């Protein structure tokens, strides 16, 4: 009889054997690097023309490709990110921005209503280092994670797609976001409301409080964070979804 280690080796090998083929990963990586460079340039533009000129001078040392000279599509004039002061682009992955808002209170569910305008929606959240964001959509727990911005990417992004619970265009959605200290993850079970304690225990949650209980019993705090929501038709493979095989 094979040991669990042997079974595991075989399971891992088999489970990952059918990697999708096609697509040029190197080209995609290069494109992301260029996009990051452009975002950096755009961020630098806020600091003034001299900073932009300097960034331009530095650009040749980064990875460049055939379309590196294309003009940037990032609009730097509008909204800035809460955590970094950098500009939020007008479009993200080809989707126009639906709303962008900035807040100064953490530790509570803050509601933002918006209506998607297309099949894909990207919700982005920016918050300071050492905090996390928890998000609910129409009252149901959606996701949580780090939300501080790392260089070229938004702090926290979640993208809806047609085969993964997409939000219907035109229908108003209630998004709620709570920004909390990152240490909360270690002490609080971030789980949907109403799960029986027994089920939580079976799933390995040994923490004493759920997120709802935590928010109800802890005071709010001062923390600056922002959210930007983009909706439309995503024009990137970043929005590609997986077709389930079984």
């Amino acid at each position, binding site marked *: 009889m094979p040991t*669990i*280690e042997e*079974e*595991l*080796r*075989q*399971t*891992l*090998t*088999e*489970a*990952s*054997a059918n*990697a*999708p083929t096609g*697509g040029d*990963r*190197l080209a*995609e*990586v290069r494109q*992301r*690097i260029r996009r*990051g460079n452009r975002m950096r340039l755009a961020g630098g533009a806020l600091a003034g023309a001299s900073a932009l000129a300097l960034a331009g001078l530095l650009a040749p040392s980064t*990875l460049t490709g055939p379309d590196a000279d294309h003009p940037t599509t990032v609009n730097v004039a509008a909204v800035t990110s809460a955590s970094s002061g950098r500009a939020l682009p007008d479009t993200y992955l080809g989707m126009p921005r639906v709303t962008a808002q900035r807040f100064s209170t953490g530790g509570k569910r803050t509601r933002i209503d918006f209506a998607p305008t297309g099949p894909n929606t990207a919700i982005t959240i920016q918050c300071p280092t050492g905090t996390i964001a928890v998000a609910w959509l129409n009252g149901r727990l*959606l*996701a*949580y*994670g*780090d939300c501080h911005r790392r*260089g*070229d*990417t938004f702090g*926290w*992004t*979640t*993208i*809806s*797609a047609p*085969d*993964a*619970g*997409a939000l219907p265009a035109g229908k108003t959605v209630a998004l709620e976001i709570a920004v909390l200290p990152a240490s909360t993850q270690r002490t609080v079970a971030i789980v949907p409301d109403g799960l029986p304690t027994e089920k939580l225990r*079976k*799933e*390995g949650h040994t923490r004493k409080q759920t997120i709802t209980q935590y928010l109800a019993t802890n005071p709010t705090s001062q923390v600056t964070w922002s959210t930007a929501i983009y909706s439309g038709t995503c024009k990137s*493979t*970043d929005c*590609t*979804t*997986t077709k389930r095989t079984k």
Partner: protein
Amino acid sequence: MRDRAEFTAYVEARSPRMLRTAYLLCRDWAQAEDLVQTALVRAWRAWRRIGDDPDPYVYRILVNTHASWWRRRWRGEVPTSAPPEATAAGDAMGAADNRALLWEALGRLPRGQRAVLVLRFFEDLSEPRVAEILGCSVGTVKSQTSKALAKMRVDPQIVAVTAESRRV
């Protein structure tokens, strides 16, 4: 230019395997591709500092990025309460089913323990190498491996099927 050539060669040589590892961590091919590309972009930014052996650095980014992305994407999957059918002992199809159960059980492990198992039993890395990637001690790798395997051995679905097959 040398950096660029080395990076290109590294991506071409290592990224297919990296994609499989990423998939085993996140269990979604689209997210795995995203994870690999994100790790490679971050690796490129530090390429000059990485040195001759980029693997530990890149895998560390991969594992850490996955940890920070937990539940990042929309959840379209609905869990089922129906238990899987028991399989007969010695049945080849049964063995495949058991591996499916093992795969499911792996998905129920905490991210850290799953990462340890993937690096140890898929990448076949030594305990010191896994410790280097995860930024922890060899002792932690050993204890996490042991805890993860123990959890899988007592996973209720695996236990149920094993008990059923013994009865057959």
